[in-house]
């Protein structure tokens, strides 16, 4: 912990203790994952009991591994801004824009008979172009959020509409399809039975976890989620942190775009739109604090498996996928109710919970940690 102590600077002892508590909570991983694992185990038990011959099989597990990565990568892209006290409503639009750019290069620019080195060159070029686009989108979003001090819901609502608008304008609503086999491999091939896309997702999730818990940047992201102003006054360049948050989010969108292109063998402006709200659902279910400041990738990982388990279980039982979606909603409300009434609201200090009692829904939802500040200003002017 000594290496992070310097930038707590001249803060009082109370604040240092609080900070140590934060870092300890990040490292310890005590946060709430146990309950989710129990829920997951209960679901596995329930479905195995109901379908002893079809559910507990390797093929079921493999099918689930094929389906988790898309939503998983997009949920990671949502979770990081949420932890920083923001949100990124543009994740799907970013992924689709990047997907379309890559698809356009692969289908219209690349010579159709390309093979060997030429193919590798064009594929690398397409991937790099998509990556570059996502970095630009991330930097712009981060700068807008940092410079305007407007809530990221608004900023990303704007970037979402803008990116989606460009995608529609350039494609006229059509989809692009027909990609090289080498790309399709990502979603079709397996390594020792594990789909490549799932390997990618797991590796990325582990990296994200390490980045959020073991690096200075990760701790700073949690800090601005807790209190942006306090973080700035303790000498952290919050603008840089915000830009990093949205660049990371956009990079994850790029990976999601690659996986989705491979899986659907097509790219379009309106693909996977319904995932947007589900990624928020998954992140919150996984224990990410909607107010920002707290949240763990491990929890998100387990939450994704819970959602997938329900979807696959219902599917095997020939229950409508719509009921699976409904039960996702119920599970989220159920978990929220348990957190509320078991008194084990793991996030937030006692004072914040006390405030939340009086302040049920607006809390810190407006303005990244500046809601109160702004309110006083308004009444004063």
């Amino acid at each position, binding site marked *: 912990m000594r290496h992070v102590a310097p930038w707590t600077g001249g803060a009082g002892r109370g604040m240092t203790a609080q900070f140590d508590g934060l870092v300890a909570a990040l490292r310890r991983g005590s946060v709430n994952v146990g309950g989710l694992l129990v829920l997951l185990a209960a679901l596995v038990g329930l479905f195995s009991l109901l379908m002893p011959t079809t559910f507990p099989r390797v093929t079921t597990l493999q099918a689930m591994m094929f389906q988790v990565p898309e939503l998983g990568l997009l949920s990671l892209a949502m979770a990081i801004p949420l932890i920083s006290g923001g949100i990124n*409503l543009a994740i799907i639009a970013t992924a689709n824009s990047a997907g379309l750019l890559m698809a356009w290069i692969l289908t219209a620019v690349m010579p159709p008979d390309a093979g060997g080195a030429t193919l590798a060159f064009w594929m690398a070029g397409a991937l790099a172009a998509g990556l570059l686009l996502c970095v630009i989108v991330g930097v712009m979003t981060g700068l*807008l959020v940092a*410079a*305007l*001090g*407007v*809530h990221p*819901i*608004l*900023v990303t*609502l*704007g*970037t*979402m*509409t*803008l*990116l*989606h*608008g*460009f995608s*529609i*304008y350039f494609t006229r*609503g059509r989809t692009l399809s027909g990609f090289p086999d080498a790309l399709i491999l990502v979603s079709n091939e397996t390594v020792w039975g594990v789909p490549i896309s799932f390997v990618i997702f797991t590796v990325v999730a582990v990296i994200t976890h390490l980045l959020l818990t073991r690096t200075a940047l990760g701790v700073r992201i949690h800090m601005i989620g807790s209190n942006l102003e306090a973080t700035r006054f303790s000498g952290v360049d919050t603008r840089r942190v915000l830009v990093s948050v949205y660049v990371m989010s956009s990079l994850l969108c790029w990976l999601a775009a690659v996986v989705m292109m491979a899986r659907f063998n097509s790219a379009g402006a309106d693909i996977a*739109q319904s995932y947007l*709200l589900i990624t928020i*659902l998954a992140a*919150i279910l996984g224990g990410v604090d*909607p*107010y920002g400041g707290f949240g763990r990738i491990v929890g998100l990982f387990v939450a994704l498996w819970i959602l997938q388990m329900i979807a696959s279980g219902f599917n095997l039982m020939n229950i*409508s996928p*719509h*009921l*699976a*979606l*409904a039960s*996702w*909603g*119920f599970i*989220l*409300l159920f978990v*929220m*109710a348990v957190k509320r009434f078991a008194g084990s609201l793991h996030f937030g200090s006692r004072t914040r919970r006390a*405030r939340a*009692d*009086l*302040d*049920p*829904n*607006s*809390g810190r*939802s*407006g*303005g990244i940690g500046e*809601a109160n*500040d*702004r*309110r006083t*200003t*308004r009444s*004063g002017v």
Partner: protein
Amino acid sequence: MPRAFSVVFGRTETALAAAILIAAVILSLSSPYFLTLPNFVNLIEAYSVTTVLAAGVFVVLVSGGIDISFAATASATQYLAAYLATSYGFPAVPALALAAALGVAMGSINALLTYYLRVVSIIVTIATSSIYYALLIYLTNATEIYNLPDWWSNRFAFVRYVTASDDVVKITLPIVVMVAAVVLTQYLMAHTRIGRQVYALGGNPEAASRIGINVLGVQLLAYGYLGFLAAVAGFIQAGRVHQAVPTAMAGQELNVLAVAILGGASLVGGIGSMGGVVLGVLFLAMLQNGLNLLGVSPYFFGVVIGLAILISISMTGYAEKHARRRHVARAS
């Protein structure tokens, strides 16, 4: 200069009115059809559903919450009324009254969950939105209802007027309903005690509850009112397209939210006016209509809306920053 800038642009309504005026002048100079009565009436009717929904969302935003389940509510209530009317021959009044009651109930569920679970309303309504939609599509098998009764699908004109150029102008039900919804919301929010309480709750929930405002009551009103207006919007939407579809409003959530925010309602709560929201709708409607008349590809419209949102929030953000700086300077 910055001071004058923030005085003029500090209020979103002023900025929007200026933008609308400028756009109107440019458009009427470049297209002779723009400033005609038929065009204007068509424009209003096309945006009637959005306006009614935006009025309801505005109330919830002012109360300090966000609701994105209204699209599901509008679809569900629309379907219920259509089902009762076509399968059981319900007359207009009971069918619509039941639909409105369902809308209020669905909205109230959001308010109750938000209040008792102590969770931000956006999370609650994401969950309820998934549940409402999924159940609706499951229960209806996603089948459309085409044979709406005449009282619903006939395009009844309250006022019929033939212009000098032989264009027929009709003031239809959607327009009348939209005006009624706007007037009612304006009255509720600006001229009643409960309206002031909604502003108070959104402005500072703690202060509001300490001066004795019934927080749950005000939230029930705000979300229930949105549910009611969602039912109204569902009704006129089905009438316009002559069918009831379970997914009629899917994907409209963020668009309507964007309209309300463009009109100056703040996510922080406690701020915004019905007039601003109407100006926001008018601005978008004019922009879309103008681009059409100028021959700009309709596919380009998304880009324009995105830019409009980003410019609008940049201006408010800039103005607020300056207001804050002045305040700090004065205090020290």
